[in-house]
């Protein structure tokens, strides 16, 4: 069974502070993704990666950076957190190509005060 682990599970940050959300996958998947989910809505893509060293902008990248230092790890960085970034963040991994079933982590609930 594919395993995607996010940390922390919950985070409270102050406006203007730096926040780093971490994601680790043990499935040797090439592709990894960061989404945010706001109440009553589906997931929106922030950044994604095709492999170590690569990061690509998703649909809502403003205010976020991403880092993929290795096949296993993909981080989402908020350099200057704002209250509008309060949300639940999900990381996912996928094998790519025709078998691109996504496996999601359990989510990180971020509150920016």
């Amino acid at each position, binding site marked *: 069974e594919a395993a995607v682990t996010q940390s922390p599970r919950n985070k409270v940050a102050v406006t203007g502070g730096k926040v780093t959300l971490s994601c680790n996958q043990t499935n040797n998947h090439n592709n990894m993704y960061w989404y945010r989910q706001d109440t009553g809505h*589906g997931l*929106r*893509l922030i950044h994604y990666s095709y492999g170590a060293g690569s990061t690509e902008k998703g649909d809502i990248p403003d205010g976020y950076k991403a880092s993929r230092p290795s096949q296993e790890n993909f981080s989402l960085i908020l350099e200057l957190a704002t209250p509008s970034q309060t949300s639940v963040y999900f990381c996912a991994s996928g094998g790519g190509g*025709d078998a691109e079933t996504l496996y*999601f982590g359990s989510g990180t609930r971020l509150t920016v005060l």
Partner: protein
Amino acid sequence: GDQVEQSPSALSLHEGTDSALRCNFTTTMRSVQWFRQNSRGSLISLFYLASGTKENGRLKSAFDSKERRYSTLHIRDAQLEDSGTYFCAAEETGKLTFGDGTVLTVKP
């Protein structure tokens, strides 16, 4: 999202009944996935389809192979544990776009 329209937004079923959820796409999509999100927020992949139909137990999904502009998820003999929010997500150019979900409540 604007490209992926899910309906209905909410659905209430009695145990043992059947129903269907639908996703319409504003453009031709290469593939579609269906997910269920439970009350704890966990997202579980139900189906990945590049064409045709797939079935797993009481769930069956179809992706319009001709125009690739819609997909359906059929639930047969609904059970209490089927309750949750169902999302479809479609892929056009390597990125998945999610619909806003269908909140399904199954009642005794």
